Protein backbone atom coordinates (compact mmCIF):
# COMPACT_ATOMS: atom_id res chain seq x y z
CA UNK A 1 0.00 0.00 0.00
CA UNK A 2 2.81 2.41 0.88
CA UNK A 3 4.32 1.83 -2.56
CA UNK A 4 1.02 2.68 -4.24
CA UNK A 5 0.58 5.84 -2.18
CA UNK A 6 4.17 6.93 -2.78
CA UNK A 7 4.00 6.35 -6.54
CA UNK A 8 0.61 8.07 -6.77
CA UNK A 9 2.01 11.02 -4.84
CA UNK A 10 5.14 11.08 -6.99
CA UNK A 11 3.08 10.99 -10.18
CA UNK A 12 0.82 13.82 -9.04
CA UNK A 13 3.81 15.87 -7.89
CA UNK A 14 5.55 15.29 -11.22
CA UNK A 15 2.46 16.32 -13.20
CA UNK A 16 1.76 19.38 -11.07
CA UNK A 17 5.37 20.56 -11.12
CA UNK A 18 5.75 20.19 -14.88
CA UNK A 19 2.37 21.84 -15.43
CA UNK A 20 3.53 24.71 -13.27
CA UNK A 21 6.54 25.27 -15.50
CA UNK A 22 4.12 26.51 -18.19
CA UNK A 23 1.44 28.26 -16.13
CA UNK A 24 3.37 31.17 -14.52
CA UNK A 25 4.57 32.47 -17.87
CA UNK A 26 1.03 32.41 -19.24
CA UNK A 27 -0.26 34.32 -16.20
CA UNK A 28 2.29 37.12 -16.32
CA UNK A 29 3.36 37.35 -19.95
CA UNK A 30 -0.26 37.85 -20.99
CA UNK A 31 -0.36 41.03 -18.87
CA UNK A 32 3.08 42.18 -20.05
CA UNK A 33 1.95 41.78 -23.65
CA UNK A 34 -1.24 43.72 -22.84
CA UNK A 35 0.83 46.56 -21.32
CA UNK A 36 3.05 46.65 -24.40
CA UNK A 37 0.09 46.73 -26.75
CA UNK A 38 -1.45 49.52 -24.68
CA UNK A 39 1.75 51.51 -25.29
CA UNK A 40 1.35 50.83 -29.02
CA UNK A 41 -2.29 51.95 -29.07
CA UNK A 42 -1.47 55.05 -27.00
CA UNK A 43 1.57 56.15 -29.02
CA UNK A 44 0.76 54.68 -32.44
CA UNK A 45 4.47 53.80 -32.68
CA UNK A 46 4.93 50.71 -34.90
CA UNK A 47 8.02 49.71 -32.91
CA UNK A 48 5.77 48.99 -29.94
CA UNK A 49 3.61 46.85 -32.21
CA UNK A 50 6.65 44.81 -33.29
CA UNK A 51 7.66 44.48 -29.64
CA UNK A 52 4.17 43.31 -28.66
CA UNK A 53 4.08 40.79 -31.51
CA UNK A 54 7.44 39.31 -30.54
CA UNK A 55 6.51 38.70 -26.91
CA UNK A 56 3.05 37.55 -28.01
CA UNK A 57 4.72 34.88 -30.14
CA UNK A 58 6.64 33.57 -27.13
CA UNK A 59 3.41 33.68 -25.12
CA UNK A 60 1.69 31.63 -27.86
CA UNK A 61 4.47 29.02 -27.86
CA UNK A 62 4.26 28.62 -24.10
CA UNK A 63 0.46 28.43 -24.23
CA UNK A 64 0.41 25.80 -26.99
CA UNK A 65 3.03 23.58 -25.40
CA UNK A 66 1.53 23.90 -21.93
CA UNK A 67 -2.12 23.48 -22.87
CA UNK A 68 -3.70 20.23 -21.63
CA UNK A 69 -0.83 19.43 -19.27
CA UNK A 70 -3.21 20.37 -16.44
CA UNK A 71 -5.81 18.01 -17.87
CA UNK A 72 -3.64 15.08 -16.81
CA UNK A 73 -4.03 16.04 -13.17
CA UNK A 74 -7.79 15.94 -13.60
CA UNK A 75 -7.45 12.42 -15.08
CA UNK A 76 -5.35 11.43 -12.11
CA UNK A 77 -8.04 12.51 -9.66
CA UNK A 78 -10.35 9.94 -11.22
CA UNK A 79 -7.83 7.16 -11.66
CA UNK A 80 -5.21 7.32 -8.90
CA UNK A 81 -7.36 9.19 -6.37
CA UNK A 82 -10.80 7.70 -7.03
CA UNK A 83 -11.81 7.61 -3.35
CA UNK A 84 -10.80 11.26 -3.01
CA UNK A 85 -12.78 12.17 -6.14
CA UNK A 86 -15.87 10.49 -4.77
CA UNK A 87 -15.62 11.83 -1.23
CA UNK A 88 -14.92 15.48 -2.16
CA UNK A 89 -15.82 15.62 -5.86
CA UNK A 90 -19.03 17.54 -5.20
CA UNK A 91 -17.05 20.49 -3.88
CA UNK A 92 -13.83 20.13 -5.79
CA UNK A 93 -15.59 19.60 -9.11
CA UNK A 94 -17.48 22.92 -9.13
CA UNK A 95 -14.46 25.27 -9.31
CA UNK A 96 -12.75 22.96 -11.81
CA UNK A 97 -15.84 22.96 -14.04
CA UNK A 98 -16.09 26.76 -13.90
CA UNK A 99 -12.40 26.94 -14.75
CA UNK A 100 -12.93 24.72 -17.79
CA UNK A 101 -15.84 26.81 -19.06
CA UNK A 102 -14.10 30.16 -18.44
CA UNK A 103 -10.82 28.99 -19.87
CA UNK A 104 -12.49 27.61 -22.96
CA UNK A 105 -14.87 30.43 -23.82
CA UNK A 106 -12.97 33.52 -22.74
CA UNK A 107 -9.48 32.48 -23.70
CA UNK A 108 -10.35 30.55 -26.87
CA UNK A 109 -12.54 33.34 -28.25
CA UNK A 110 -10.20 36.23 -27.67
CA UNK A 111 -7.03 34.22 -28.19
CA UNK A 112 -7.96 33.94 -31.88
CA UNK A 113 -8.60 37.68 -32.18
CA UNK A 114 -5.31 38.37 -30.42
CA UNK A 115 -3.28 36.29 -32.87
CA UNK A 116 -5.28 36.49 -36.11
CA UNK A 117 -7.01 39.84 -35.75
CA UNK A 118 -4.17 42.38 -36.12
CA UNK A 119 -5.41 43.71 -39.46
CA UNK A 120 -9.00 42.50 -39.16
CA UNK A 121 -10.35 44.34 -36.13
CA UNK A 122 -9.86 47.86 -34.82
CA UNK A 123 -6.80 48.62 -32.70
CA UNK A 124 -8.95 49.14 -29.64
CA UNK A 125 -10.88 45.90 -30.07
CA UNK A 126 -7.61 44.04 -30.55
CA UNK A 127 -6.24 45.61 -27.38
CA UNK A 128 -9.43 44.65 -25.53
CA UNK A 129 -9.00 41.06 -26.73
CA UNK A 130 -5.42 40.96 -25.47
CA UNK A 131 -6.50 42.24 -22.06
CA UNK A 132 -9.38 39.72 -21.96
CA UNK A 133 -6.99 36.86 -22.70
CA UNK A 134 -4.82 38.04 -19.78
CA UNK A 135 -7.81 38.38 -17.47
CA UNK A 136 -9.24 35.04 -18.65
CA UNK A 137 -5.96 33.22 -17.99
CA UNK A 138 -5.79 34.66 -14.50
CA UNK A 139 -9.45 33.88 -13.80
CA UNK A 140 -8.75 30.26 -14.75
CA UNK A 141 -6.01 30.25 -12.15
CA UNK A 142 -8.46 31.68 -9.62
CA UNK A 143 -10.75 28.65 -9.82
CA UNK A 144 -7.92 26.14 -9.66
CA UNK A 145 -6.53 27.92 -6.61
CA UNK A 146 -9.98 28.08 -5.00
CA UNK A 147 -10.04 24.28 -5.32
CA UNK A 148 -6.55 24.03 -3.88
CA UNK A 149 -7.38 26.50 -1.10
CA UNK A 150 -10.31 24.29 -0.14
CA UNK A 151 -7.95 21.32 0.18
CA UNK A 152 -5.82 23.37 2.60
CA UNK A 153 -8.83 24.67 4.56
CA UNK A 154 -12.06 22.76 3.87
CA UNK A 155 -15.14 24.94 4.48
CA UNK A 156 -18.71 25.27 3.20
CA UNK A 157 -19.53 21.56 3.11
CA UNK A 158 -21.34 18.84 5.02
CA UNK A 159 -20.63 15.10 5.02
CA UNK A 160 -23.50 12.93 3.81
CA UNK A 161 -23.08 9.46 5.33
CA UNK A 162 -25.61 7.95 2.90
CA UNK A 163 -23.57 8.79 -0.17
CA UNK A 164 -20.20 8.96 1.64
CA UNK A 165 -19.65 12.37 0.05
CA UNK A 166 -18.91 15.84 1.26
CA UNK A 167 -21.55 18.08 -0.26
CA UNK A 168 -21.26 21.80 -0.82
CA UNK A 169 -23.63 23.78 1.40
CA UNK A 170 -22.18 27.25 0.88
CA UNK A 171 -20.53 28.13 -2.44
CA UNK A 172 -19.43 31.56 -1.17
CA UNK A 173 -17.62 30.07 1.83
CA UNK A 174 -15.62 27.99 -0.63
CA UNK A 175 -14.67 30.75 -3.07
CA UNK A 176 -14.19 33.49 -0.49
CA UNK A 177 -12.20 31.32 1.89
CA UNK A 178 -9.31 33.46 3.21
CA UNK A 179 -6.88 30.66 2.36
CA UNK A 180 -8.11 30.51 -1.26
CA UNK A 181 -7.90 34.29 -1.67
CA UNK A 182 -4.38 34.58 -0.26
CA UNK A 183 -3.25 31.52 -2.22
CA UNK A 184 -4.58 32.98 -5.47
CA UNK A 185 -2.94 36.36 -4.95
CA UNK A 186 0.38 34.87 -3.84
CA UNK A 187 0.51 32.35 -6.69
CA UNK A 188 -0.40 34.71 -9.53
CA UNK A 189 2.01 37.37 -8.30
CA UNK A 190 4.70 34.65 -8.31
CA UNK A 191 3.76 34.06 -11.96
CA UNK A 192 4.13 37.79 -12.71
CA UNK A 193 7.63 37.74 -11.25
CA UNK A 194 8.59 34.69 -13.34
CA UNK A 195 7.30 36.37 -16.51
CA UNK A 196 9.09 39.62 -15.72
CA UNK A 197 12.34 37.70 -15.20
CA UNK A 198 11.73 35.94 -18.51
CA UNK A 199 11.27 39.23 -20.41
CA UNK A 200 14.16 40.85 -18.54
CA UNK A 201 16.52 37.93 -19.17
CA UNK A 202 15.77 37.58 -22.88
CA UNK A 203 16.02 41.35 -23.34
CA UNK A 204 19.40 41.22 -21.57
CA UNK A 205 20.48 38.53 -24.07
CA UNK A 206 19.52 40.83 -26.98
CA UNK A 207 21.59 43.63 -25.45
CA UNK A 208 24.55 41.32 -24.90
CA UNK A 209 24.35 40.43 -28.61
CA UNK A 210 23.83 44.08 -29.57
CA UNK A 211 20.57 43.20 -31.37
CA UNK A 212 17.08 44.72 -31.15
CA UNK A 213 18.46 47.31 -28.73
CA UNK A 214 15.41 49.60 -28.71
CA UNK A 215 12.98 46.74 -28.10
CA UNK A 216 15.17 45.18 -25.44
CA UNK A 217 15.58 48.43 -23.51
CA UNK A 218 11.86 49.19 -23.57
CA UNK A 219 11.02 45.61 -22.60
CA UNK A 220 13.44 45.80 -19.68
CA UNK A 221 11.71 48.91 -18.36
CA UNK A 222 8.23 47.36 -18.67
CA UNK A 223 9.40 44.06 -17.11
CA UNK A 224 11.30 45.66 -14.25
CA UNK A 225 8.36 47.90 -13.26
CA UNK A 226 5.92 44.97 -13.42
CA UNK A 227 8.41 42.65 -11.73
CA UNK A 228 9.17 45.09 -8.92
CA UNK A 229 5.49 45.72 -8.21
CA UNK A 230 4.81 41.97 -8.26
CA UNK A 231 7.81 41.28 -5.99
CA UNK A 232 6.59 43.79 -3.42
CA UNK A 233 3.05 42.46 -3.71
CA UNK A 234 4.32 38.90 -3.19
CA UNK A 235 5.79 40.01 0.16
CA UNK A 236 2.38 41.30 1.27
CA UNK A 237 0.52 38.21 0.01
CA UNK A 238 3.20 35.95 1.49
CA UNK A 239 2.66 37.62 4.85
CA UNK A 240 -1.07 36.95 4.59
CA UNK A 241 -0.44 33.36 3.45
CA UNK A 242 1.80 32.75 6.48
CA UNK A 243 -0.86 34.26 8.77
CA UNK A 244 -3.43 31.86 7.31
CA UNK A 245 -1.05 28.90 7.63
CA UNK A 246 -0.38 29.75 11.29
CA UNK A 247 -4.11 29.73 12.04
CA UNK A 248 -5.24 26.83 9.87
CA UNK A 249 -2.19 24.62 9.35
CA UNK A 250 0.16 25.23 12.31
CA UNK A 251 2.06 22.00 11.63
CA UNK A 252 3.02 23.35 8.20
CA UNK A 253 4.35 26.56 9.77
CA UNK A 254 6.37 24.56 12.30
CA UNK A 255 7.84 22.44 9.47
CA UNK A 256 8.62 25.55 7.40
CA UNK A 257 10.84 26.75 10.24
CA UNK A 258 12.02 23.40 11.58
CA UNK A 259 10.47 24.48 14.89
CA UNK A 260 10.24 21.45 17.18
CA UNK A 261 9.70 23.27 20.46
CA UNK A 262 7.27 26.18 20.55
CA UNK A 263 8.41 29.61 21.68
CA UNK A 264 6.99 32.95 22.73
CA UNK A 265 8.37 35.60 20.39
CA UNK A 266 9.79 32.93 18.05
CA UNK A 267 12.47 33.98 15.59
CA UNK A 268 12.79 33.20 11.91
CA UNK A 269 15.80 31.29 10.64
CA UNK A 270 17.40 33.47 7.98
CA UNK A 271 20.11 30.98 7.10
CA UNK A 272 20.38 27.56 8.65
CA UNK A 273 21.21 23.90 8.33
CA UNK A 274 18.84 21.37 9.90
CA UNK A 275 20.09 18.58 12.08
CA UNK A 276 18.68 15.52 10.34
CA UNK A 277 19.08 13.43 13.48
CA UNK A 278 16.42 15.58 15.12
CA UNK A 279 12.97 14.05 15.59
CA UNK A 280 9.94 14.96 17.69
CA UNK A 281 10.91 12.18 20.10
CA UNK A 282 14.54 13.05 20.88
CA UNK A 283 16.31 16.00 22.44
CA UNK A 284 18.84 16.68 19.68
CA UNK A 285 19.43 20.27 18.64
CA UNK A 286 17.17 21.12 15.66
CA UNK A 287 19.87 23.00 13.72
CA UNK A 288 23.54 22.38 13.04
CA UNK A 289 23.88 26.07 12.32
CA UNK A 290 21.43 28.94 12.16
CA UNK A 291 21.21 32.72 11.99
CA UNK A 292 17.88 33.87 13.40
CA UNK A 293 15.93 37.12 13.18
CA UNK A 294 14.38 37.38 16.66
CA UNK A 295 10.59 37.43 17.06
CA UNK A 296 10.00 37.50 13.32
CA UNK A 297 8.16 34.16 13.12
CA UNK A 298 5.67 35.35 15.77
CA UNK A 299 5.21 38.54 13.81
CA UNK A 300 4.81 36.69 10.49
CA UNK A 301 2.45 34.02 11.78
CA UNK A 302 0.39 35.94 14.30
CA UNK A 303 1.14 39.64 13.61
CA UNK A 304 2.34 39.90 17.22
CA UNK A 305 6.04 40.07 18.18
CA UNK A 306 5.52 38.10 21.39
CA UNK A 307 2.94 35.53 20.25
CA UNK A 308 3.51 31.88 21.07
CA UNK A 309 4.28 29.77 17.99
CA UNK A 310 3.60 26.08 18.67
CA UNK A 311 6.31 23.67 17.62
CA UNK A 312 5.99 20.15 16.25
CA UNK A 313 6.17 18.66 19.78
CA UNK A 314 3.29 20.73 21.15
CA UNK A 315 1.17 20.06 18.08
CA UNK A 316 1.74 16.31 18.33
CA UNK A 317 1.79 15.73 22.07
CA UNK A 318 -0.23 18.77 23.19
CA UNK A 319 0.50 21.37 25.86
CA UNK A 320 -2.23 21.82 28.44
CA UNK A 321 -0.74 25.04 29.80
CA UNK A 322 -1.14 26.58 26.34
CA UNK A 323 -4.51 25.00 25.64
CA UNK A 324 -3.10 22.91 22.80
CA UNK A 325 -4.63 19.49 22.45
CA UNK A 326 -2.44 16.57 21.42
CA UNK A 327 -3.16 14.50 18.35
CA UNK A 328 -3.85 11.29 20.32
CA UNK A 329 -7.18 12.63 21.58
CA UNK A 330 -8.19 13.61 18.05
CA UNK A 331 -7.25 10.14 16.80
CA UNK A 332 -9.48 8.64 19.48
CA UNK A 333 -12.42 10.83 18.44
CA UNK A 334 -11.73 10.12 14.78
CA UNK A 335 -11.94 6.38 15.49
CA UNK A 336 -15.27 6.91 17.24
CA UNK A 337 -16.53 8.76 14.16
CA UNK A 338 -15.36 5.90 11.96
CA UNK A 339 -17.07 3.31 14.16
CA UNK A 340 -20.28 5.35 14.19
CA UNK A 341 -20.16 5.57 10.40
CA UNK A 342 -19.76 1.79 10.13
CA UNK A 343 -22.62 1.32 12.58
CA UNK A 344 -24.80 3.71 10.56
CA UNK A 345 -24.05 1.92 7.28
CA UNK A 346 -24.79 -1.47 8.84
CA UNK A 347 -28.08 -0.23 10.36
CA UNK A 348 -29.10 1.27 7.02
CA UNK A 349 -28.30 -1.96 5.19
CA UNK A 350 -30.45 -3.84 7.72
CA UNK A 351 -33.17 -1.18 7.36
CA UNK A 352 -32.99 -0.52 11.11
CA UNK A 353 -33.94 3.18 11.15
CA UNK A 354 -33.79 3.54 14.94
CA UNK A 355 -30.24 2.23 15.14
CA UNK A 356 -29.28 4.32 12.10
CA UNK A 357 -30.47 7.52 13.76
CA UNK A 358 -28.61 6.66 16.95
CA UNK A 359 -25.44 6.00 14.99
CA UNK A 360 -25.88 9.23 13.08
CA UNK A 361 -26.16 11.20 16.34
CA UNK A 362 -22.85 9.76 17.54
CA UNK A 363 -21.25 10.32 14.15
CA UNK A 364 -22.24 14.00 14.10
CA UNK A 365 -20.53 14.51 17.48
CA UNK A 366 -17.18 13.24 16.21
CA UNK A 367 -17.34 13.78 12.44
CA UNK A 368 -15.02 16.81 12.43
CA UNK A 369 -12.19 14.51 13.39
CA UNK A 370 -13.12 11.60 11.12
CA UNK A 371 -9.87 12.05 9.17
CA UNK A 372 -7.79 11.50 12.32
CA UNK A 373 -9.42 8.08 12.72
CA UNK A 374 -7.22 6.78 9.88
CA UNK A 375 -3.95 7.97 11.43
CA UNK A 376 -2.04 5.08 12.98
CA UNK A 377 0.22 7.07 15.29
CA UNK A 378 0.56 10.78 16.10
CA UNK A 379 4.03 11.21 14.56
CA UNK A 380 2.58 10.18 11.17
CA UNK A 381 1.15 13.71 11.08
CA UNK A 382 4.60 15.32 10.80
CA UNK A 383 5.38 16.29 7.21
CA UNK A 384 8.91 15.90 5.78
CA UNK A 385 10.49 18.78 7.71
CA UNK A 386 13.74 19.06 5.71
CA UNK A 387 12.05 19.38 2.33
CA UNK A 388 9.54 21.96 3.58
CA UNK A 389 12.18 23.95 5.53
CA UNK A 390 14.68 24.24 2.67
CA UNK A 391 11.98 24.90 0.03
CA UNK A 392 10.53 27.71 2.15
CA UNK A 393 13.89 29.34 2.76
CA UNK A 394 14.90 29.00 -0.87
CA UNK A 395 11.66 30.67 -1.96
CA UNK A 396 12.05 33.54 0.51
CA UNK A 397 15.73 34.04 -0.38
CA UNK A 398 14.91 34.18 -4.07
CA UNK A 399 12.07 36.61 -3.36
CA UNK A 400 14.55 39.00 -1.74
CA UNK A 401 16.89 38.59 -4.71
CA UNK A 402 14.06 39.47 -7.13
CA UNK A 403 13.25 42.72 -5.31
CA UNK A 404 16.93 43.72 -5.47
CA UNK A 405 17.28 42.70 -9.13
CA UNK A 406 14.19 44.55 -10.37
CA UNK A 407 15.01 47.66 -8.29
CA UNK A 408 18.57 47.88 -9.58
CA UNK A 409 17.47 47.13 -13.16
CA UNK A 410 14.89 49.89 -13.07
CA UNK A 411 17.28 52.45 -11.61
CA UNK A 412 20.10 51.54 -14.01
CA UNK A 413 17.87 51.50 -17.08
CA UNK A 414 16.30 54.86 -16.23
CA UNK A 415 19.47 56.67 -15.07
CA UNK A 416 22.18 55.30 -17.35
CA UNK A 417 22.83 53.09 -20.36
CA UNK A 418 22.21 49.52 -19.27
CA UNK A 419 23.95 48.17 -22.39
CA UNK A 420 27.35 49.15 -20.91
CA UNK A 421 26.93 46.85 -17.93
CA UNK A 422 27.57 43.40 -19.41
CA UNK A 423 28.07 41.65 -16.08
CA UNK A 424 24.71 42.91 -14.90
CA UNK A 425 23.04 41.80 -18.14
CA UNK A 426 24.49 38.31 -17.66
CA UNK A 427 23.09 38.21 -14.11
CA UNK A 428 19.67 39.20 -15.48
CA UNK A 429 19.87 36.48 -18.15
CA UNK A 430 20.81 33.77 -15.65
CA UNK A 431 18.03 34.85 -13.31
CA UNK A 432 15.37 33.45 -15.69
CA UNK A 433 15.34 29.95 -14.11
CA UNK A 434 15.26 31.39 -10.59
CA UNK A 435 11.63 32.48 -10.98
CA UNK A 436 10.63 28.93 -11.90
CA UNK A 437 12.63 27.52 -8.98
CA UNK A 438 10.91 29.91 -6.55
CA UNK A 439 7.47 28.91 -7.86
CA UNK A 440 8.18 25.20 -7.57
CA UNK A 441 9.64 25.68 -4.09
CA UNK A 442 6.46 27.50 -3.09
CA UNK A 443 4.35 24.58 -4.25
CA UNK A 444 6.53 22.13 -2.34
CA UNK A 445 5.94 24.18 0.84
CA UNK A 446 2.18 24.32 0.22
CA UNK A 447 1.68 20.66 -0.72
CA UNK A 448 4.38 18.71 1.11
CA UNK A 449 3.82 20.88 4.19
CA UNK A 450 0.28 19.55 4.63
CA UNK A 451 1.14 15.86 4.29
CA UNK A 452 -0.20 13.32 5.10
CA UNK A 453 -3.48 15.11 4.38
CA UNK A 454 -5.09 15.10 0.93
CA UNK A 455 -7.72 17.38 2.49
CA UNK A 456 -6.45 19.09 5.63
CA UNK A 457 -7.75 17.33 8.74
CA UNK A 458 -10.41 15.51 6.73
CA UNK A 459 -8.89 12.95 4.43
CA UNK A 460 -5.41 11.42 4.62
CA UNK A 461 -3.76 10.34 1.36
CA UNK A 462 -4.00 6.67 2.40
CA UNK A 463 -7.81 6.87 2.28
CA UNK A 464 -7.89 9.09 -0.80
CA UNK A 465 -5.86 6.77 -3.03
CA UNK A 466 -7.45 4.24 -5.43
CA UNK A 467 -7.07 0.50 -5.04
CA UNK A 468 -5.08 -0.03 -8.21
CA UNK A 469 -1.94 -1.89 -9.15
CA UNK A 470 1.05 0.25 -8.21
CA UNK A 471 2.93 -1.02 -11.28
CA UNK A 472 0.37 0.80 -13.48
CA UNK A 473 1.10 4.02 -11.63
CA UNK A 474 4.83 3.43 -12.06
CA UNK A 475 4.46 2.86 -15.80
CA UNK A 476 2.44 6.05 -16.27
CA UNK A 477 4.87 7.97 -14.05
CA UNK A 478 7.72 7.21 -16.46
CA UNK A 479 5.51 7.83 -19.50
CA UNK A 480 4.51 11.24 -18.15
CA UNK A 481 8.10 12.05 -17.31
CA UNK A 482 9.07 11.26 -20.89
CA UNK A 483 6.15 13.21 -22.37
CA UNK A 484 6.66 16.29 -20.20
CA UNK A 485 10.41 16.34 -20.68
CA UNK A 486 9.90 16.13 -24.45
CA UNK A 487 7.41 19.00 -24.27
CA UNK A 488 9.79 21.08 -22.20
CA UNK A 489 12.63 20.48 -24.63
CA UNK A 490 10.27 21.35 -27.52
CA UNK A 491 9.25 24.57 -25.77
CA UNK A 492 12.83 25.64 -25.12
CA UNK A 493 13.94 24.77 -28.68
CA UNK A 494 11.02 26.53 -30.39
CA UNK A 495 11.43 29.58 -28.18
CA UNK A 496 15.20 29.85 -28.63
CA UNK A 497 14.72 29.47 -32.41
CA UNK A 498 12.22 32.34 -32.43
CA UNK A 499 14.48 34.51 -30.28
CA UNK A 500 17.44 33.83 -32.59
CA UNK A 501 15.28 34.64 -35.64
CA UNK A 502 14.30 37.93 -34.03
CA UNK A 503 17.98 38.71 -33.40
CA UNK A 504 18.62 38.09 -37.09
CA UNK A 505 15.76 40.43 -37.94
CA UNK A 506 13.69 37.68 -39.55
CA UNK A 507 9.93 37.31 -39.46
CA UNK A 508 8.79 34.96 -36.74
CA UNK A 509 5.00 34.88 -36.49
Amino acid at each position, binding site marked *: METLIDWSRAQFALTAMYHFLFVPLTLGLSFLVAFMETLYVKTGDEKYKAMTKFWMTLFGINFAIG*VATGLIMEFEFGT*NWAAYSWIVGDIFGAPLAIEGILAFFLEATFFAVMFFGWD*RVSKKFHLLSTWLVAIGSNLSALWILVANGWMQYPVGMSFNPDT*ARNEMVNFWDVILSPVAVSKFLHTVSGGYITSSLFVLGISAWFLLKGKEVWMAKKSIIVASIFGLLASLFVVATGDEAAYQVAGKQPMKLAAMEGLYKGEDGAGIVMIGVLNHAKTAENNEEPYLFEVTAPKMLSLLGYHDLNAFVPGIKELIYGDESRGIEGVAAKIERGKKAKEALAWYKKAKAEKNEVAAQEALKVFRIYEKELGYGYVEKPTNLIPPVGLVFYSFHLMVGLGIWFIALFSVTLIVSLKSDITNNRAFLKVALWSIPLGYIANEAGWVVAEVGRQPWAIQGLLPVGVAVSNIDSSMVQVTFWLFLLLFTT*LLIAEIRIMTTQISLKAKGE*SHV
Partner: protein
Amino acid sequence: MLAINSKATDPSDAKISKLFYKAPYMLLKQIKEACSLYADGFASMTLGRTLWKVVAIKLFVLFALIWPFLHTGPKTVEAKEALAVSKLLDK
Protein backbone atom coordinates in the same frame (compact mmCIF):
# COMPACT_ATOMS: atom_id res chain seq x y z
CA MET B 1 -45.01 41.82 -30.96
CA LEU B 2 -43.20 44.68 -32.53
CA ALA B 3 -44.95 46.57 -35.29
CA ILE B 4 -43.40 44.99 -38.31
CA ASN B 5 -45.68 46.19 -41.08
CA SER B 6 -46.02 49.14 -43.36
CA LYS B 7 -48.77 50.65 -41.23
CA ALA B 8 -46.22 51.72 -38.62
CA THR B 9 -46.72 55.44 -38.33
CA ASP B 10 -44.25 56.30 -35.55
CA PRO B 11 -40.77 56.76 -37.11
CA SER B 12 -39.16 54.94 -34.16
CA ASP B 13 -41.44 51.93 -34.81
CA ALA B 14 -40.27 51.84 -38.40
CA LYS B 15 -36.67 51.96 -37.25
CA ILE B 16 -37.24 49.06 -34.84
CA SER B 17 -38.99 46.96 -37.48
CA LYS B 18 -36.13 47.59 -39.92
CA LEU B 19 -33.66 46.48 -37.28
CA PHE B 20 -35.81 43.44 -36.55
CA TYR B 21 -35.54 42.30 -40.18
CA LYS B 22 -31.87 43.18 -40.44
CA ALA B 23 -30.73 41.51 -37.21
CA PRO B 24 -30.44 37.91 -38.57
CA TYR B 25 -28.46 39.14 -41.59
CA MET B 26 -26.17 41.18 -39.35
CA LEU B 27 -25.69 38.18 -37.09
CA LEU B 28 -24.94 35.93 -40.06
CA LYS B 29 -22.44 38.48 -41.35
CA GLN B 30 -20.71 38.56 -37.97
CA ILE B 31 -20.53 34.75 -37.84
CA LYS B 32 -19.15 34.69 -41.40
CA GLU B 33 -16.53 37.26 -40.47
CA ALA B 34 -15.58 35.33 -37.35
CA CYS B 35 -15.25 32.13 -39.42
CA SER B 36 -13.08 33.87 -41.99
CA LEU B 37 -10.95 35.31 -39.18
CA TYR B 38 -10.22 31.76 -38.05
CA ALA B 39 -9.88 30.37 -41.59
CA ASP B 40 -7.52 33.13 -42.80
CA GLY B 41 -5.63 33.05 -39.52
CA PHE B 42 -5.03 29.31 -39.73
CA ALA B 43 -4.15 29.55 -43.44
CA SER B 44 -1.50 32.20 -42.87
CA MET B 45 0.14 30.51 -39.89
CA THR B 46 3.82 29.61 -40.05
CA LEU B 47 5.05 28.96 -36.53
CA GLY B 48 1.43 28.23 -35.55
CA ARG B 49 1.41 25.14 -37.77
CA THR B 50 4.31 23.68 -35.82
CA LEU B 51 2.55 24.50 -32.57
CA TRP B 52 -0.69 22.86 -33.69
CA LYS B 53 1.31 19.77 -34.66
CA VAL B 54 2.80 19.72 -31.16
CA VAL B 55 -0.69 20.05 -29.64
CA ALA B 56 -2.05 17.25 -31.87
CA ILE B 57 0.85 14.89 -31.11
CA LYS B 58 0.54 15.65 -27.41
CA LEU B 59 -3.18 14.89 -27.35
CA PHE B 60 -2.63 11.69 -29.36
CA VAL B 61 0.05 10.50 -26.95
CA LEU B 62 -2.14 11.38 -23.98
CA PHE B 63 -5.41 9.88 -25.12
CA ALA B 64 -4.30 7.04 -27.38
CA LEU B 65 -1.12 5.85 -25.72
CA ILE B 66 -1.20 6.80 -22.05
CA TRP B 67 -4.94 6.89 -21.31
CA PRO B 68 -5.39 3.07 -21.50
CA PHE B 69 -2.75 2.69 -18.77
CA LEU B 70 -4.45 5.34 -16.66
CA HIS B 71 -7.98 4.08 -17.09
CA THR B 72 -7.75 1.43 -14.42
CA GLY B 73 -9.77 2.90 -11.56
CA PRO B 74 -13.45 2.23 -10.80
CA LYS B 75 -15.65 3.24 -13.74
CA THR B 76 -19.27 3.16 -12.61
CA VAL B 77 -20.87 5.42 -10.01
CA GLU B 78 -21.66 2.37 -7.86
CA ALA B 79 -18.07 1.14 -8.03
CA LYS B 80 -16.75 4.58 -7.08
CA GLU B 81 -19.13 4.83 -4.13
CA ALA B 82 -18.28 1.29 -3.03
CA LEU B 83 -14.57 2.12 -3.14
CA ALA B 84 -15.04 5.31 -1.11
CA VAL B 85 -17.18 3.52 1.50
CA SER B 86 -14.73 0.63 1.82
CA LYS B 87 -11.86 3.10 2.28
CA LEU B 88 -13.77 5.13 4.85
CA LEU B 89 -14.72 2.02 6.79
CA ASP B 90 -11.18 0.61 6.48
CA LYS B 91 -12.45 -2.59 4.87
